């Protein structure tokens, strides 16, 4: 962990503070539960077909949702999709989307931001104007339009999210790199004749990416919400796929109080997941950088 070795004393003290902060502890606890659920999904809800574990099993073909019973502890949606199964495997879907998108957007953002900040001048101007253009389409609208053009589906949603969520990272890192490039250690590296790529990767990035990682943590919750929003609208996950937004969309036609379970359980699963990330993000923001918000 080269990255963390480079952290100064102050950051390490702050990291310690993070693990004693009650908000953060609550967040980490919730997150641990979710990681366990995702890891143990095959045990908690054994798939009928191990080749396609994300396909929600159907317990019949009745239209009307059925309340929780011994067989299905969270009940079933319209068309008898098992809600418990969908919530459990939906956890994996959420983690997959969150991590994949955050990983890719962070890479793009770091690449754009470090090049813009390091070379300054015309390169910087052009890259930042491109960033502005990507930010000029409201995020959700941009994701909807690109997903639709690509032809709907969860993979398309992921591509669209990656295409339109790298800009904040790029801007944040650019600012940090602009500062770092004037530091003595970078001057020293340059005078040794190291090439630019090596200076950026080996010298500048280890000292500037920490805020980016914090920001990435704070983005995961929102990303999962947007992805399930698209599934909810029918643009993301297919009909029988274990996705929280998809399973919640089934409750839309059954808004009577007697069908409370069709919304309650998937909603609870989703809200607590996002809450976990937000609690961690809130604590991080408080401790590390109030300006990040």
């Amino acid at each position, binding site marked *: 962990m080269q990255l963390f070795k480079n952290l100064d004393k102050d950051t390490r003290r702050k990291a310690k503070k993070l693990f004693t902060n009650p908000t953060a502890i609550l967040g980490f606890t919730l997150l641990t539960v979710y990681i366990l659920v995702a890891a143990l999904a095959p045990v908690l809800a054994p798939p009928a077909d191990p080749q396609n574990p994300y396909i929600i099993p159907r317990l019949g073909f009745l239209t009307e949702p059925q309340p929780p019973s011994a067989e299905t502890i969270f009940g079933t949606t319209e068309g008898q999709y098992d809600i418990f199964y969908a919530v459990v495997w939906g956890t994996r879907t959420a983690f997959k989307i969150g991590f994949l998108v955050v990983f890719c957007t962070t890479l793009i953002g770091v690449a754009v931001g470090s090049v813009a900040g390091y070379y300054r001048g015309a390169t910087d101007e052009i890259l930042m104007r491109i960033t*502005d*253009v990507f930010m000029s389409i409201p995020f959700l*609208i941009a994701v909807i*339009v690109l997903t639709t053009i690509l032809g709907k589906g969860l993979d398309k949603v992921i591509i669209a999210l990656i295409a339109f969520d790298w800009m904040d990272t790029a801007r944040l890192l650019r600012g940090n790199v602009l500062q770092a490039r004037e530091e003595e250690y970078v001057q020293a590296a340059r005078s040794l004749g190291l090439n630019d790529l090596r200076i950026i990767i080996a010298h500048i990035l280890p000292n500037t990416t920490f805020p980016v990682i914090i920001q990435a943590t704070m983005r995961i919750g929102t990303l999962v919400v947007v992805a*399930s929003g698209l599934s909810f609208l029918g643009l993301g996950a297919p009909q029988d796929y274990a996705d929280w937004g998809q399973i919640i969309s089934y409750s839309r036609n059954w808004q009577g*109080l007697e069908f409370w379970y069709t919304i309650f359980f998937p909603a609870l699963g989703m*809200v607590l997941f*996002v809450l976990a990330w*937000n609690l961690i993000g809130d604590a991080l923001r408080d401790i590390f950088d109030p300006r990040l918000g």
Partner: protein
Amino acid sequence: MFTYVLRRLIMIPVTLLGVTLLVFAMMQLLDPYQLLSAYVSSPAELKGQNIERLITKYGLDQPLPVKYTRWLGQVVKGDLGWSESASMPVGKAIRTKFPLTFELALYAFFPIILGGIWLGKLTAVRHNSAFDHSTRMVVIVGWSFPDFVFGLLVILIFYSWLGWFPPGVLSNWASRVVESADYVRYTGVLTIDALLNGRLDIFWDALRHLLGPVTTMTYLWSAFLIRITRSGMLDVLHKDYIRTARAKGLPEKMVIHKHASKNAMIAVLTVAGRLVIYLLTGTVIIETIFNRPGMGKFVAFAAQQLDYSGILGGTLFFSLVLVVGNLIVDVLYAVYDPRIQLG
């Protein structure tokens, strides 16, 4: 200041041009037939026509730069093609649907601003009290609710259970009146039109239908405002001039409402401006759930129906709102706070 505004004004067309390039680039991912459906100005054109002739007519066989300039020429003229999902030209769809989105944003804005500022101030003044911590929890939980989940819960509780407010925009009897010949639609904003027509009953009916979506938006967005107000206030409360004010024996009320609030409000003002933009451009899911045929629902429905000209036109429109809105907010900010030096 003048040069700043001027520079921003010059950047606007550049950014908008960039947006059209981006949208055009996304369009190129469509296959030729889908692309053609985004070009034609009415569905009649597609019937009985030779596809090859249409492709030549719209220049789809031309090189990219030529295609782009032709398309841009159409867009600038406001010709955004035919929306299959709304069965009308996209331009007309925007004109009829945007007032409903505007109305929703308008009614959601005031409770969010007033409630958010009030609670934000209160939590900052009672920093670290039980009230502060519990509000903070409510805020984080609110922030964690996806809008479709909270909206569905509002419908479940207030519509299905209590029967207080219905989804949609008007009751049946009211929409019959609105569609009748002697009812003039001045603005397209239902409540304003009702008042202008002197129909208080329709005004109340429209207002009742607004309650659900407005409640949802208020809860979800207040969180954002409370957080900003609180941190702005906390920042100011630690300044020297506040200590001076307290030291000279001013009553605490005066210190907070006269001295601290004024400076804390600068941060809140910018956020209020951004809030308007978020409210205007962030209604896709709320309008879909509450069945309000505004711009947000238009885009969602167009996407579901694979109505390409509909979503492309909607995207261009929302970007225009965002870019122009940001400009207005930045300029107002510069005018309001003379300390800001803009190069």
